[in-house]
Structure formats: C-alpha cells, structure tokens
C-alpha cells in the first residue's frame, strides 16, 4: 500500500513537472496570414508596418515573443499619446491572441495527448496517493505529524508551493500571454463543452480550480469519512463548483445565453452591477438574462438573511461558495496555519469591514453612473478611482494572489477572513440575527487546543470552550472541524431558538460555584 502511494506521488509529481515545463516547450512564428486573421481591421493598417519585422521569424519562447508583440504595440501607443491622439491608442491584448495563434510545437500537435498525460496522470497519481489511506488508517481524526511536515508547517515544501501559487496567480492575472501553452492545453475540453468557444486564461483558471476542488475533495472525503457532516459538506462544495460554477455557465453560453454563475453573488461578485454586466443580462440576455439579474439580487437581499438566520453563514461559506470550496478541499492541509492571536482578530475586523465598505461605495458609484449616464461622482472619475482599484487590489491581489497563493503560509482562509466583503455581510447577520451557534458541552473541555489550532478562521475556540460559553462569532464559517477534532466531544454546531444563544459562561459540575461574570 505504501508502495502504491509512493508510485502515485511520483506520477503526480511527473504530471506537475510536465505541466510546468510545458510553458517552455513551444516556439512561435507569426505569419502575415495569422496577423490578418487575428488583428482587427481598423488596426491592421497601422500595425502592419511595425509588425513586418516580426513576421516569419521564429522565437524560442513565449516570454520573448509576447514581449516583442507587447512592446511593438506599446511603442505605437506611446507615440499616439505623445501626439495626444487618444483615439489612436490600441487597448486590445494582441500579445495574448497573437501568441496563441502563433504557437508551434508539441503543444499544438499533441494537445489532447498532453492533456490526458497531465490531467489524467495527475488524477491517477493523486488517487493512488490518496485512496490507500482507506486501508492504512482507520477512520477517525488523523492529524499525525502535521506539524512535523515541511508542507504543512511552512517548511521548504510549503514555501516552494506558496511561491508557485503566487507566481501562477500573477501570471494568470497580469501576464496571461506567458501561459498561452496552458490555455491551449485545455482547449480540447473547452471545445468539448462548447465547440464554438475559445479557451482563455479564465477557462484555464476555472478548470484548474475545479480540478483541485474535485481531487482534493476526494482526499477530504476519505480523511473525514468518520464524520457524515464533513462528508455531506464536502460533497456539496464539490457539486457546486463542478456543476454550478464551472459547467453550467459554459453550457449557458453554448445555448446562446449569458454566462452566469448562479451561486455567486454581490458583493463577492463585484462586477455584478457593472454597466456592461447589467446590460448583458437585461438587454441582450432576454428573459433568461432578466431572470438571472433578479436571481442575483434576490440571493443577497433575501437569500442571505433568511438562510443565515436558519442555518448560519456556513450555508454559503462552507457548503456553496467557490472560494470556500477551494479552501475546504485544496486548503485543508493548511488550516492549522491561521493566526489565532487576539491581534489578528483585531486586524481582521478592521480589514474585512473596510473591504465591505469599499465594495458598497464602489458599487454605489457605479450604479449611480449607470442610472444617471455619467462617469464620475462628486467630481471623482469612478472607473479610475474606485472600480479599477477595487478590481486590482481586492479582486486580483487580495482574493487571488494573497487569498490562495498564501495558503501554505498563512492558512486557507486568508481571503475569507480578512478580505471577503460577502463574508463580512454574512457574518454581520450571523452575529446579530441567527439561530446558529456552536454549543460547548458543560464542563468537559480539557483546554487541549485542538479546536483553536484547526480553526481555519483563526477563532480561539478554546477560549470559549474552557469557560463553558457558546461560540457566536461573525467569522465562523461552520466548517465543523473544531467539533471534529475535539477529543472530548465538547463542541457541536447547532441551530436552535435564538434565546439564550450566547449562553452564559458556566462550567457544569461544581455545586459551590454559581454564575460568574
């Protein structure tokens, strides 16, 4: 069995290595034909002369090639700006499209084979590594050696993985032309789902994301197979990611409907109220689009308060949400790295509420502009000073680069805890109007600290448990792991009547002592 695991690990690493090295495999030749088919008519005349020098020349890697294209276009733009010919500036990302079209080599010739090798091999390897656990370890909490492992305790593997993830996000968000080979790699899948579609960096991201949630979800299902709560919850996030977030929007597009993720909602989905998005749904989307628009609004106006009241914030954060889904599956090996200090809690409250306010102000301005047909509010240009910074700092840097890239360094819920405006909103309702709480079991706590250690939200669960007080915290995502890891059966996630929810800090078992505090 151990042998199978070692083989599995090696297959997985080989697939990963192949995937990474794929970035350096191709060479690039731009021909005039490609140029003419990919560059917009209105740009062709101006770009043709400067592109002549690139035609038919073979470049050894994406970086050089994409830079060449980028710089060539940029030179023209600089010139146009200098002469204040603003309408002449070209904003299209030709580096991405032309790189993809000019790619040559095995990635183009053997795309499907490579896809199967990498993702088939990756899956096979991962499963070979994961599945034998069923027979090696009896069901139950098995956190053995987590803090001795270089992956789980910020050792060299953790740092290496963090670096890889951070680089991946930076490339994906800001230098997508460099990862063209990966975009091409998932093209066969894209065509399978939607024959008329083209793979893009976002399709690549969606696929990798889903892949991670499914494979690591299987690991989670096996690790917590003694706990039906964990199994059901994990199956739920796997389903929502695969079916609702990944497949359904693609299928909708294939059916000529707007691209729409039914489980995402404002303010996490911060472009929901962007003019182009509203227009896409209400004007060009037909009745389906209109339904989507109403659905999206109902979800956060009615869905959030009602569901949080009955079930707690967890209904979204650890059962439905995509960010939560990744955190609970791929992020599970890192949950113990969250900071439990009081100081971290203070920072968290400031930060997450600041982001929520930022999101509300930004959306308010965008909506105001949409309704009034203007571009600015109080003399401030909305796009430049609100919408764009939000997209950059919160949408890309915080939720992506930091939120996921820092899993192996700061735990798996950095984004959910410090940055997610929707979490702040859900948490607000959870704190003040909900039936949800974590009950502590009389006087049974032995202050061991397992619960706090494994709380991915950095809640010092023990602080409550050892004084016999229920845990009612806005940040609790109801993952239930504190309850699972408690060796004394002290914690239970419960929904009951609101009254007495906060509980009194009293430890049962001592006659002499009456209520304190």
């Amino acid at each position: 069995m151990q042998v199978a695991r070692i083989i599995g690990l090696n297959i997985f690493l080989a697939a990963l290595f192949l995937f990474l090295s794929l970035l350096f495999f191709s060479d690039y030749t731009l021909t005039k034909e490609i140029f003419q088919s990919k560059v917009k008519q209105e740009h062709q005349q101006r770009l043709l002369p400067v592109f002549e020098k690139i035609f038919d020349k073979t470049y050894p890697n994406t970086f050089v090639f994409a830079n060449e294209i980028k710089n060539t276009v940029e030179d023209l733009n600089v010139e146009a700006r200098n002469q204040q010919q603003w309408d002449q500036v070209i904003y299209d990302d030709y580096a991405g499209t032309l790189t993809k079209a000019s790619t040559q080599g095995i990635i183009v010739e053997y795309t499907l084979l490579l896809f199967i090798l990498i993702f088939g091999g990756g899956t096979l390897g991962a499963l070979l590594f994961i599945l034998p656990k069923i027979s090696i370890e009896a069901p139950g909490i098995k956190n053995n050696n987590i803090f001795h492992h270089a992956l789980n305790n910020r050792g060299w593997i953790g740092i290496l993985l963090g670096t890889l993830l951070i680089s991946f996000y930076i490339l994906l968000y800001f230098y997508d032309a460099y990862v063209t080979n990966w975009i091409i790699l998932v093209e066969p899948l894209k065509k399978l789902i939607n024959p008329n579609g083209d793979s893009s960096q976002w399709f690549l991201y969606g696929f990798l994301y889903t892949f991670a949630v499914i494979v690591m979800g299987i690991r989670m299902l096996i690790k917590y197979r003694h706990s039906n709560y964990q199994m059901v919850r994990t199956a739920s996030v796997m389903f929502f990611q695969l079916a609702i977030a990944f497949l359904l929007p693609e299928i909708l597009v294939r059916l000529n409907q707007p691209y729409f993720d039914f489980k995402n909602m404002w303010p996490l989905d911060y472009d929901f109220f962007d003019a182009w998005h509203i227009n896409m749904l209400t004007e060009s989307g037909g009745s389906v689009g209109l339904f989507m628009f109403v659905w999206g609004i109902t979800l956060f106006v009615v869905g959030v308060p009602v569901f949080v009241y009955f079930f707690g914030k967890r209904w979204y954060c650890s059962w439905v949400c995509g960010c939560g889904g990744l955190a609970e599956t791929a992020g599970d090996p890192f949950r113990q790295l969250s900071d439990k200090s009081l100081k971290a809690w203070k920072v968290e409250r400031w930060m997450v509420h600041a982001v929520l306010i930022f999101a509300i102000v930004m959306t308010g301005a965008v909506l105001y502009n949409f309704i009034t047909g203007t571009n600015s509010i109080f003399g401030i240009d909305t796009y430049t000073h609100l919408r764009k910074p939000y997209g950059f700092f919160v949408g890309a840097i915080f939720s992506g680069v930091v939120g996921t890239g820092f899993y192996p360094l700061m735990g798996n819920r950095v984004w959910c805890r410090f940055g997610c405006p929707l979490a702040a909103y859900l948490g607000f309702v959870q704190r003040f109007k909900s039936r949800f709480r974590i009950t502590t079991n009389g006087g049974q706590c032995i202050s061991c600290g397992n619960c706090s250690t494994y709380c991915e939200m950095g809640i010092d669960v023990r602080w409550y448990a050892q004084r016999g007080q229920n845990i009612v915290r806005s940040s609790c995502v109801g993952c239930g792991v504190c309850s699972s890891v408690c060796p004394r059966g002290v914690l239970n996630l419960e929904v009951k009547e609101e009254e007495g929810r906060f509980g009194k800090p009293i430890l049962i078992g001592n006659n002499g002592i009456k209520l304190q505090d």
Partner: protein
Amino acid sequence: MSKIVIIGNGIAGVTAARHIRKSSNDSITIVSSETEHFFSRTALMYIFMGHMKFENTKPYEDWFWKKNKIDLVYDHVNAVETQNNTLICRSGKKITFDTLILATGSQPNKFGWPGQDLQCVQGLYSYQDLQLMEQNSKGIKKAVIVGGGLIGIEMAEMLLSRNIEVTFLVREKEFWSNVLPMQEAKLISDHVRSHHVDLRLETELLNIQDNGEGKVKGIVTSKNESIECQLVGLTVGVSPSISFLKDSGIKINRGVLVNELMQTNIANVYAIGDCVERTYELSGRRNIEQVWYTGRMMGEVVAQTICGSPTKYEPGPWFNSAKFLDIEYQTYGNVSPQLKANESEFYWEHSGKKKAMHFIWDTSSQVFIGINSFGIRLRHEKFDAWLRAKQSISYVLEHLAEANFDPEFFRRHEPEIIQAFEKQFPHLLSLSLK
C-alpha cells in the same frame, strides 16, 4: 493589599489565580518550575504526534498574565517555611506570602523495579518527560508500555504515530478493567489490538534489562517472557508531588491533607488539584482525584474562599472523558467496574464495535446512577440535571435523544437502543414509549 502566592501553574493553580483576580485586587504570584507559561498537560500527546506545537497548547497568550497582573516566577520551590511565611527557591530567591496555595500536581509512580532507572525508561507527566520521550524514541523500533491506564494508552498512540511497535503490559483482565466494566474493557482491548498494539493482558513487569551501556535492552514479564525493546514507558499511575513539603509543618499523607475549604492544617495555606488528599468523604469519589476537571473546580472554590466568601468543594455528579485511539469516551454519574448488589445494568453495543452505551440504575428505586458512552457524544447538561433530579432509568431512555451531542447527519441510535432495552426489560419502560 494581601500577597497571594501559588505554587504550580497547572490548571488548578491558574484557575485559582484567574478567579481571584476576578474579584480582588490582591497581589498574585505563581511560582512554577516546569514551563514559564501555563500549558495544557492533557495535550502533551498531541505535541509529540505533531497535531500541535507547544505554542498551541497554551490556553492563554503570553500577554494575558501581565494584563491581569498575575506575576509569574519561573523557579522551583525547595522548601516552604510556614513559621515566617516564606518560600525558598532553587535559585536562592525567597518569596514571602500572606496566603499560599499549593497546586503542585503529581509525578509518575515507579515501583522499584530492577532497572527502572536505566536510560530510556520513563514516565509521561511533564513537559520535560515529553522532551525526554522525543530523545528516547529517536530511531527506535520497539517500545514496551507498562500499565494499562489513560496515560499508557496515550503513550501507545504517540509511539504508533512514529511507526514504533508497541507492546502493552496490562495487569488487569482487560484494558482498564479496574475502572471500566468488563464489556467496555473488552471493546477497548479489541480496538487497541486492531491498531496493531501487542496487548498482553494479566501481565506485569518483572524487570528491565541493561544493554551494558546503561540503556534498556528489553524487559522480562511476570510470565517470564523476554521482550526486546529500546524504550520502556512506565505508566502505572501518578502520586501527589509533595516531597518538598516534608519539613514544612503542613500535614501530608499521600497528598496534602485538606478540609472542605481546601485548607491545610496551616490556616493561610491551601491546596488544590492533583496534590490534594481530602480528609473528608464525598460519596462516589476517591480522596485523591487526579483529573483535569477536579483541579479546575478546586481552583474555582478556593478563589471564592480566599476572596472572602468561604465556599466548600462540593462537586456535582461525577463526569469524565477520554479518547482511546479512535473511540471517544464520556461518562456521567457512577459506573463501577463491578456491578454492585443493588444495581441493574443495560449494555448496548453497536455491531461496528466502535459504539457502546452502558446504563446503571438502582434496582429497587429504578433511579438512574450512571452511564458510560463510547463513540456517541452526550450532553453534559442533560445528564447532570437528570442525575441531580434522580430521574429514573426509563426517563433517561425516553429522553435519550435529547442528550445526543453528535454532529448533524450522524447516525442516530436511540431507537435501536430503546428497542434493545425494551426487549431485556419489558416491564421498565413507561407506556408513552410503547
């Protein structure tokens, strides 16, 4: 302002300090020599197994003490001079007090076995023991654990997590059958074996053998079997850690003797926690209680007493919990290893052999006496209330579902349990259930 000094920063001493601080402005000093800050002894195993770091086992962050004006002295008390209210520390430092609380805990027993002082023979109680175990277990293949109690099984689990083979010598007929009734003891014994522990029942340690370099080579059992091993864990119980009090004038026997207010024979000296031996009886309880909860409760009451409202140590119904490898255990009320003459019992075991419940009640009055539960979590609050109200066994079964504390979606067994009970005791259940 009076000066309160506490020896021992375990759960008992720290609870006392915290509760005194809640209602008084007196100066509080805790002297302790094991670790600088309070940590959870019950979590020692998890540090070794890599579930947590030492940091994670500290229930309060390091700033907590200063903020609450609790002074910490990291030193060992060598002697207590009660005539002049002074402690003499190992460093030579002298600390005076107005009120002294002894909360010095326990130390592992050793029964004078030949070879017990060899290298790689150890108990497990303190943080230092843990560090020693870390050293002693490096690169070894096989260990023997002597004594089938709660710390013994924890030690076994710890070693298993490092892939070290474990032989477990247990004097009793089944694992922990001096505390658990035979049914449960068997269940746990089987579970221990299923984790590939070589469990040797009704076997004791005869001697420990030297490899010629002062290290363990192996042991010989009371059945004259030799077992090769590189580590011997001695987990045959603990005793109060009180040797430094010998000449202090404080009365001691096996532990520090105290009255109902946790007061020793010296009026301004109290004792709480593991190191205490009660001079008065509490029904169903031993005079020395070496568990986490009792240390905490004694800390709570002594704080009241010292702060001016004398409060007796009157614990409610007994409760405890533990975890045997993968099986969680909770108990409420009194379940003795041997059924008493006036008692009746009902035992239910799930077919998967990882869940069980054992109910005890008084035969003639039908009053519920206690329960052992394995693999099913129960609500402390409910059982505490039922035991206090002297509810009947049929009441307990009828309301059993309310006391379930398992997470959502877990399989519920109450109907099955009640059915089995009904079969065995058809006359006992009230009509409402039938």
